[in-house]
């Protein structure tokens, strides 16, 4: 009986009696979820356009942040370093298309998936080789990112919001909106959607697959860069982020592999669910539940709605 009370009643009593803590937890979940959502967004962009399950997206986040910080450490001014990093991400997209995707076109999905593993390993080695493997601090001051926190007296207590997190949420929202417009209104965006629908049909009306792939990998690289900046500002820039980047996978399940709004909503659900679970239910089992909570949410979700919240095509039932 006591166990049931601890599981089903006590957490909600806690939520009711200390709403400030609840709001604080929700906010932290929201911000964490926003970052998961951004990584998932990169996955979705590439999966939509080329059908490649890009495992390297998480590493691209770290790699872009590392390039930015590394260039700055070599004396390049902050905004020039930012521009150079964008150039590096374009170069990466171009190289990946030329060296990896083009020779592997029309191979089974798992082969392409494995190829992105190869990219992952190469980027880890290359990034550490060039910039060193030690954790680095993101250059928040030079990019004019705000510091400190805003504290409200609300909900019968104190809620403190990091200024950086607020900016992260705003920038991420702008970027998602921008991508949405880009996809639906521009010529290239329409070409991207055409490629997503059918490669061969897109080819037959004169859309260059190679060009589209470079563009979409570059877009994913830009998303990775933004994610990397904000993530790096919250913690250090190091390849330890790699495991955290895997959290984007349950987000994909929740949102569906092909849906941009799905990635966002899924990210928020996972982020908030994970924080709430850890804060209110985690102590019951000894803490540390955020290592697997997201995956279990996704697993349970899969049983009821395998195509995700916004997934376009229903995956084949077995």
């Amino acid at each position, binding site marked *: 009986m006591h166990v049931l009370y601890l599981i089903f009643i006590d957490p909600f009593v806690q939520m009711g009696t200390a709403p400030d803590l609840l709001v604080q937890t929700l906010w932290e979940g929201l911000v964490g979820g926003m970052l998961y959502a951004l990584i998932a967004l990169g996955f979705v962009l590439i999966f939509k356009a080329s059908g490649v399950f890009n495992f390297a997206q998480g590493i691209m986040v770290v790699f872009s942040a590392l390039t930015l910080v590394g260039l700055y450490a070599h004396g390049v001014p902050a905004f020039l370093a930012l521009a150079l990093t964008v150039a590096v991400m374009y170069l990466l997209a171009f190289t990946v298309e030329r060296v990896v995707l083009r020779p592997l076109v029309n191979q089974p999905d798992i082969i392409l998936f494995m190829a992105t593993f190869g990219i992952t390993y190469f980027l880890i080695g290359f990034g550490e080789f060039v910039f060193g493997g030690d954790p680095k601090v993101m250059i928040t001051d030079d990019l004019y990112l705000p510091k400190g926190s805003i504290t409200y007296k609300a909900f019968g207590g104190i809620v403190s919001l990091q200024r950086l997190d607020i900016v992260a949420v705003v920038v991420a929202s702008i970027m998602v909106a921008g991508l949405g417009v880009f996809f639906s209104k521009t010529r290239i965006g329409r070409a991207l959607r055409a490629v997503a629908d059918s490669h061969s049909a897109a080819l037959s009306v004169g859309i260059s697959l190679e060009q589209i792939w470079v563009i979409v990998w570059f877009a994913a690289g830009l998303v990775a860069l933004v994610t990397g900046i904000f993530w790096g500002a919250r913690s250090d820039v190091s390849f330890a982020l790699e495991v955290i980047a895997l959290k984007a996978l349950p987000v994909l399940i929740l949102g569906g592999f092909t849906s941009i709004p799905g990635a966002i909503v899924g990210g928020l659900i996972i982020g908030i669910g994970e924080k709430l679970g850890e804060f209110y239910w985690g102590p019951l089992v000894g803490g540390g539940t955020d290592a697997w909570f997201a995956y279990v949410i996704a697993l349970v979700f899969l049983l009821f709605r395998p195509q995700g919240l916004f997934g376009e095509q229903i*995956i084949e039932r077995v």
Partner: protein
Amino acid sequence: MFYREAGQFKTSYASDLAVFPILQDRIGIAVILAIAFVVIPLTGNDFIINAVMIPFLIFSLAAIGLNLLTGYTGQLSLGTGAFMGVGAYACYKLTTIFPGVNIIILVVASGFFSALVGAVFGLPSLRIKGFYLAIATLAAQFFLEWCFTRIPWLYNYNLSTAIEVPQRELFGVIVTGPRATAETRYYIVLAIVVAMTWVASNLVHGRIGRMWMAVRDMDIAAELMGIRLLPTKLLAFAVSSFYCGVAGAMMVFLWYGGAEANVFNINQSFTTLFMIIIGGLGSILGSFLGAALIYILPIVLRFLPPELGLSLHAATIEHITYMTVGVLIIFFLIAEPAGLARLWQIGKQKLRVWPFPY
């Protein structure tokens, strides 16, 4: 010319069903086994046996396990590391509970616990497949890894949270623990790996293997032909996890001599997956070739620069190793998506027609 089956007639059903129907294959296997059982223990030093051969065999076994699931049944799994961990921790608990029982029996028995856990986490495969299933198995990976650190009962409430292998003797010879010689452990690992490889080879050549391959190639067609998907897939998960579990138990008991939970982390799962992709999906031989390449290549890379007179930092070599592995993965996928096992097939064909080109 060297490899020709002409003139070797199959005169009974038994010879038709043989795993190695060709004389040259039988000779080749005998030579390999002779090298493994006699030449390597006699000539190899401690480093070769302990740091190269034992891990190579253990990883090969894990790769075979994953290959049964991913290569033969077509179910992508990223939980290999965790299933190996289940085997290791089960073996550790078994030795604690039954200190008198033969350790080799316990190592093999721990595979059954792993099989059970694997079958439970294989349940989602009934509704989902492909990448969705891979992510579902990630849940197993992270949940089990969490269990290994957060449930103190599993590591006997050790303060170090690590499992340490007790010393066990078998017929008066020390086989586990820090005082066991490398040769003894090598022989045990080799015997288990050879026996289980033989079983796996028979499995995939028989009815069960055909069922798995039918499910892999087209599950709906397989179901129409009367193959029940639920038992078939769960059996694949169970057998695969059994192999991984035994490999994990051997890894801790006969190689490391002690381990923490992070040995069985996600990287272990990925490494095993590389092995079977590079080696060849759906090939027992490929599991060995892939394990050899992925495991031994970094060792070679580590020792090559000093041999060539280059002095590099250990960290730099580590980075170069990462880059090389990445490039090699991409290279092999482009050059031969079917893996190293396919290269061996091509080589056999060349031997068959030599000296003519075709």
